[in-house]
């Protein structure tokens, strides 16, 4: 039996903020258990501060859980074996403005262990998939927000990951860019990649995901499958509103 793409088991994450006398603690996620299967598109919904970004960072090894266990393809997120299979798009990624997209991708490709012809092919393929090819001659400083987001996706795709973790992938984009990115994600999923995306846009998650996790104040309130929200009157939006109220 193959390991799930992501597995959370009783996970808690508490942030410690040092103060003049002692420290202040804030629990961002608590008693969190869920699984994401390989090849599945899972959405993550929640209000601001619900713990969505914390979950993404726990999966990518940027944060360590305070309690419980996180596994990515059966490995700890800090292990090379896990990281090699994950592509991460953080919210509003930054790239050096003076360089061209291929140069930025070359750096991240090298960090993913690519080199030589394999690296060149990966850059070409990522730029083609994300529609950046016509803009290859521009500097990143000339890029619009939508193009930056495409570049963010391109860097996440370089090493052909089995799991894409996307934090607000369509945040602030115009309708055409949203349409293109949605089509791109659907295409990546059809190649067998699991996608885990967080968003404030219920309609976007509804269009892409086969299952949605709704977070409320750091806890998993509801897990809804496509069949459930399609059968429910008011759809996913009503389920979400009822869960967070």
């Amino acid at each position, binding site marked *: 039996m193959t390991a799930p793409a992501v597995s959370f088991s009783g996970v808690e994450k508490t942030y410690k903020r040092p103060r003049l006398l002692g420290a202040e603690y804030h629990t961002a996620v608590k008693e969190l258990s869920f699984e994401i299967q390989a090849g599945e598109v899972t959405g993550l919904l929640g209000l601001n501060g619900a713990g969505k970004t914390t979950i993404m960072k726990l999966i*990518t090894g940027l944060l360590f859980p305070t309690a419980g266990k996180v596994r990515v393809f059966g490995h700890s997120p800090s292990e*090379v074996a896990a990281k090699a299979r994950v592509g991460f798009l953080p919210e509003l990624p930054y790239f050096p403005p003076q360089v061209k997209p291929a140069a930025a991708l070359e750096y991240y490709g*090298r*960090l993913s262990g690519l080199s030589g012809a394999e690296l060149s092919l990966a850059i070409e393929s990522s730029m083609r998939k994300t529609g950046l090819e016509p803009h290859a001659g521009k500097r990143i400083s000339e890029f619009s927000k939508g193009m930056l987001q495409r570049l963010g996706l391109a860097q996440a795709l370089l090493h052909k990951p089995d799991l894409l973790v996307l934090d607000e992938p369509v945040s602030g984009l115009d309708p055409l860019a949203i349409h293109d990115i949605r089509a791109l994600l659907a295409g990546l999923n059809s190649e067998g990649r699991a996608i885990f995306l967080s968003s404030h846009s219920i309609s976007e998650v509804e269009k892409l995901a086969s299952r949605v996790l709704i977070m409320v104040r750091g806890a998993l309130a509801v897990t809804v499958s496509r069949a459930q929200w399609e059968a429910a009157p008011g759809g996913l939006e009503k389920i979400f509103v009822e869960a967070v109220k």
Partner: protein
Amino acid sequence: MNNLLLVRAVAFNAFAENVRNRFFTLFAVFAFTAVYASVLAGVMAVDQEARVLADFGLALIELTALAYSIFGASSALLKEAETKTIYLVFSRPVPRWAYLAGKLSGTLLTAGLMLLIMGAMHLSLLAMRGFGLPPFYAWALAGTFLKLSIIVSFAFFVSLFSTSAVSTLVISSIMWTLGHFASEARYMVERLPGIKGIAFSALLWLIPNLQLFNARDAAGAAAALGPAALFSAAAWVAASFLGALWLLSRKEF
């Protein structure tokens, strides 16, 4: 995957980013102005012009390179965390030691380039005034580079627990200043009685003796920078690197 290739990728990227940054050009222009302005001090020195120009220029080179390097080292990791660039690095199979080694190497490469550029400016001034290459010139630059290596590594370490780039800059500058008074401090501590003497002697181990790297002080010796200087630099860089790595490996982003 070869981790050394990762170190090289991070180092070259850091080097390229540093050189592209406008501060590199600004510091180079400042150094050019300061080095060439030292011609006034040389003229006032009359028959000691060659010595004054050489000493003054080398001191300016060291101070400018120090300011540039500490500035770069203080903000190197902080900037990557603020811009979230570090997310794209640490979500990949990049060991934290490789990232730290790459960043440190990139910063030192830039400091080395800055030293070479300023050295070339200085030598061109000396040539313009009709003077040749001063003895121990290369050793002096090498000594300055070793001092920079120590302070830059220390700044990386401090930047991982300090609250801002400014506090890292201040702490590292204090360390650099203290390091130039290590012999004087040792002389005074040796005269302290009892437990005070022991306590202050222990504290002295926390300050690098940067006087070891003043190559011109050692004029007449077989080699301006002896094994003690090289060993001291290696030990301080290694200790700061390990301290920084210990902090970085526990750091969350």
